[in-house]
């Protein structure tokens, strides 16, 4: 049963590597959203530091929305998705493997790029570990929740807008606690509480989202 998990994970990572141009686009998008922001606010360092938590998270949300479109779409179009659903192996496990691979190739990259970006915004260096931790705990949840939305909107031709309407409200808790942890860390307050809650959301996501994704995929194929 686990062999199918590794097989799908390996396949998707291999695909991500072969199509690494797409990854670079998503990363560039993320970096550009953050880098363009100061041009609008002016060079007031204090303002930038204050808005940086919201800014980083909004950039992550937008980049996630962009990259989620490709999570199941190619498989849906070339018929591989039918084979996932027909497999005697649990579909939820296959879906989880796909989301894990997706996160390793996009969310994790954002996490690794974030220290550079927050330092660019003038955030004090002591807050960087907490910022990374909050992204590390928050982005997988974004992937899991987003995958439900993507799976539901698969059979619709132009699903982009509907997808954002569907999943942005569900991103609210992650946004609140993720940005909350960052704000606390920047002003030197304890941020453990918010991080714990992000962890709890992630645990909830990993245990329940795969089943929702599986059900949504089946509906999309009917």
């Amino acid at each position: 049963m686990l062999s199918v998990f590794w097989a799908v994970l390996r396949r998707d990572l291999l695909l991500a590597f072969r199509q690494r141009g797409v990854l670079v686009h998503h990363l560039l998008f993320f970096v550009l959203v953050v880098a363009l922001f100061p041009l609008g606010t002016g060079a007031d360092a204090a303002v930038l530091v204050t808005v940086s938590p919201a800014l980083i998270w909004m950039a992550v949300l937008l980049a996630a929305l962009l990259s989620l479109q490709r999570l199941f779409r190619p498989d849906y179009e070339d018929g591989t998705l039918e084979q996932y659903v027909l497999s005697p192996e649990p579909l939820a496990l296959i879906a989880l493997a796909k989301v894990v691979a997706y996160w390793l190739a996009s969310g994790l990259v954002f996490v690794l790029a974030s220290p550079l970006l927050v330092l660019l915004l003038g955030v004090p260096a002591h807050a960087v570990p907490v910022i990374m931790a909050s992204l590390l705990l928050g982005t997988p949840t974004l992937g899991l929740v987003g995958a439900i939305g993507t799976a539901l909107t698969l059979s619709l031709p132009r699903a982009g807008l509907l997808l954002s309407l569907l999943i942005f409200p569900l991103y609210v808790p992650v946004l609140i606690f993720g940005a909350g942890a960052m704000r606390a860390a920047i002003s030197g307050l304890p941020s453990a509480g918010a991080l714990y809650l992000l962890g709890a959301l992630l645990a909830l996501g990993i245990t329940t989202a795969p089943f929702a994704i599986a059900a949504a995929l089946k509906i999309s194929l009917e």
Partner: protein
Amino acid sequence: MTLPRLVIRNLSCGRGERALFRDLDMTLEAGEAARILGENGSGKTTLLRTLGGLQSPLAGDIEWQSATPSDDGEPILLQDDLCFIGHENALNGALTPVENLDVLMRLSARRVTEKRIVETLTDLGLKRVARRPCERLSAGQKRRASLARLWLTDAPLWLLDEPASALDVDARGVLCARIDSHVSAGGVVVFTTHEELAIANGSVRRVELAPC
């Protein structure tokens, strides 16, 4: 040991609420193949998808009797015994035929060595392209690579949607021979084709889908 058997009773299928055909009755014993006939839009693909379990029937039921003895007392489901080849090839363009087939076989819970995949592709005349991204293959080559699953699987029940599309005469002959040998060995095949497939030994039932 029981022989595999596919029993279809009063099956009505359709898209959404609208039925495409009603009350299909058919029993396929081991060693039987059924060719589904009907004009475009008569529900051939819908029937295959319903049999595979991709969509639920509007009415009626589908029963699969497996020949494989189960080792832990759990019943063997249709999904465990199934090889489904749909309209699309299920090949990702950025992966090679070998990589695609490896994952497809694992998805059907069958493990096949890479050596065997390469051998099968060689037999099907795809040796040169076995390790080339599928997007660089011609339509016929892609179809052949997708059909290679039929040589790799040991599943008794095959559901094939237009398996011969984009194939040349030679490849079609090879496919017929494979379906033939599978049926002779006690397998069950349900397929759709526009052109006649010459299957010599096994009995091929013709099933006409009448629009309702």
